[in-house]
C-alpha cells in the first residue's frame, strides 16, 4: 500500500477540510459555553434545599447522561422537525445537543468541586453577614473553579471528539468534510489520518490552555 498525501492538494481537498475544522471549532466552542452555563445551573440546582429543584436537576442529569448523544441529536434535529414541526437548523440543533449533553457531565464536575470546599468557608461568609449566594459567588466558586479545571479539560476534549457525531445531522464539520472527500476518492487512510491529526491538535490546544489557566490561578493565591 502506498500513501498519497498529495491528495490533500487536489480538488480543493485541504481547504474543504480546513473549512470543516473551522466549523468544528466554532460548534465546539459554542457548545462549550452552553455546557458551562448549563453545568453551573444544574450543578448548583442539584444542591438546592428545595426538593423540586434538586429532583429536576437530578432528572436532567439522569436523562442526558443515560441516553446516547447520537440519539439525542437525532431527536433534536429530525424528531422535533417531523413530529412537532420545530425545525432547528442543523448547527443550532448541533450546538444545543452537544451543549446539553456535555452540560450534564459539567454539572457533576461543578457539584463535586463545590462540595470539596471546606464547609467552614460558607460558615465564615455567612457569619460575616453575606448571603448564601454572595458567599457562593465570592468565596466558594472562585476556589471551586480551580478544582474544576482538570476534569473540565477532560470534558472539553470529549466534547470536541463528540462533535464528529454532528456529521450525522448534516452539519458540515470536519468529519462530514472528510466523509464527502473519501466518498469521491476512496483515500480513507490519508483523509481520516489528516482529520485525526486536526482533532488531536485542537485537543492538545485545549489541554495546554487549561494548564496555563490553572497555573495563572494558582499564582494568584491558593497553593493548597
Amino acid at each position, binding site marked *: 500500500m502506498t500513501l498519497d498525501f498529495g491528495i490533500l492538494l487536489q480538488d480543493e481537498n485541504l481547504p474543504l477540510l480546513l473549512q470543516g475544522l473551522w466549523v468544528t471549532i466554532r460548534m465546539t466552542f459554542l457548545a462549550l459555553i452552553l455546557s458551562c452555563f448549563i453545568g453551573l445551573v444544574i450543578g448548583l440546582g442539584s444542591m438546592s434545599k428545595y426538593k423540586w429543584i434538586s429532583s429536576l436537576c437530578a432528572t436532567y442529569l439522569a436523562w442526558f447522561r443515560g441516553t446516547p448523544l447520537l440519539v439525542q441529536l437525532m431527536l433534536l434535529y429530525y424528531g422535533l422537525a417531523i413530529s412537532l414541526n420545530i425545525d432547528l437548523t442543523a448547527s443550532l440543533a448541533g450546538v444545543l445537543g452537544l451543549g446539553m449533553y456535555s452540560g450534564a457531565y459539567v454539572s457533576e464536575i461543578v457539584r463535586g468541586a463545590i462540595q470539596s470546599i471546606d464547609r467552614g468557608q460558607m460558615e465564615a461568609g*455567612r*457569619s460575616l453577614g*453575606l448571603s448564601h449566594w454572595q458567599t457562593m459567588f465570592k468565596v466558594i466558586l472562585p476556589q471551586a473553579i480551580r478544582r474544576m479545571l482538570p476534569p473540565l479539560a477532560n470534558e472539553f476534549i470529549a466534547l470536541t471528539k463528540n462533535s464528529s457525531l454532528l456529521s450525522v445531522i448534516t452539519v458540515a464539520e470536519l468529519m462530514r468534510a472528510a466523509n464527502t472527500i473519501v466518498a469521491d476518492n476512496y483515500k480513507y487512510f490519508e483523509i481520516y489520518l489528516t482529520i485525526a491529526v486536526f482533532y488531536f491538535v485542537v485537543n492538545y490546544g485545549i489541554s495546554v490552555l487549561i494548564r496555563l489557566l490553572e497555573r495563572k490561578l494558582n499564582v494568584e493565591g491558593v497553593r493548597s
Partner: protein
Amino acid sequence: MIEITNLDKYYGSHHVLKDINLTIGQGEVVVIIGPSGSGKSTLLRCMNYLEPIQSGQISIENQPIGMIEQNGKHKEMPENQLNKMREKVGMVFQNFNLFPHLSVRENITLSPLTLGKMNKKTANETASTLLAKVGLSDRADAYPDQLSGGQKQRVAIARALAMKPHVMLFDEPTSALDPELIGEVLDAMKELAREGMTMVVVTHEMGFAKDMADRVVVMDQGQIIEVDKPDVIFQNPSQERTKTFLHKVLTHT
C-alpha cells in the same frame, strides 16, 4: 445584649443543648468551658444561627435571631433579615476559615464591600487600621497560606471586626495553634476586651478565663451547670462536676 431563653437543640434524636438560659450584658466577657462534647461550640454557633434550633429563643439587642414568631407560629426568619442580624455578630473559628484565594486585605474588605457598607477607599483604610491593631500592618498583601497560624487567627479577628460587630464570638480560637503562637492571639483578644467589646469565648485557656472573664459558664452534657465569676469557679465551684473538669484540665496543662 444577648438573651437566650429555654433553648433546645437536637441533632436528629441527639439532644445536644438542654433548656439553656443565659443573658449576656453589654461589654461583658463571658468564657464558656466544659468537657469535650458538652455542647460549647453548638451553643456558640446557635448565637449567630449557624445552627438551627428546635425550640426557645435567642435575641441580640432585643431582636430575635433565626426564629421569629409570626401569627403565633415559630418559624425561620427570611434570609435577608438573618444576614442583617449576623452583621452585628462577629465570629472567629478554631481553624480560622480565612478565604485562601484572597489576600489578607481582601479577606477583610470582602464583606463590607460586597454589602455596600463602605466604599473601596474607606474599606482599605479600615483594613489598614484593623491590621495595625492586630500587629500585622506589613502583611496586608500576603495570602493566608503565607501566614503562621497565629497570624491567620489575628487576620480572622480583623476580618470579623471590619463589619463593626456589637458582639464577638470565639470558638476555641487558639486550639489549632502551636503553643508559642497562642499568646499573640490572646493579646489581641485582651485588647478587644479592654476596649469594651462584648465577647463570648469558648476556650481551654484557663489563664484567659481567670484574667479576662467577667463570668465563666460551665457546661456539661448539653446543660449549663454553673455560671459565676472566675474566682468563684476556679476556687470554690458549687458543682462537683465543675471541680472534676477543672481538676482534669488544670493538671494536664
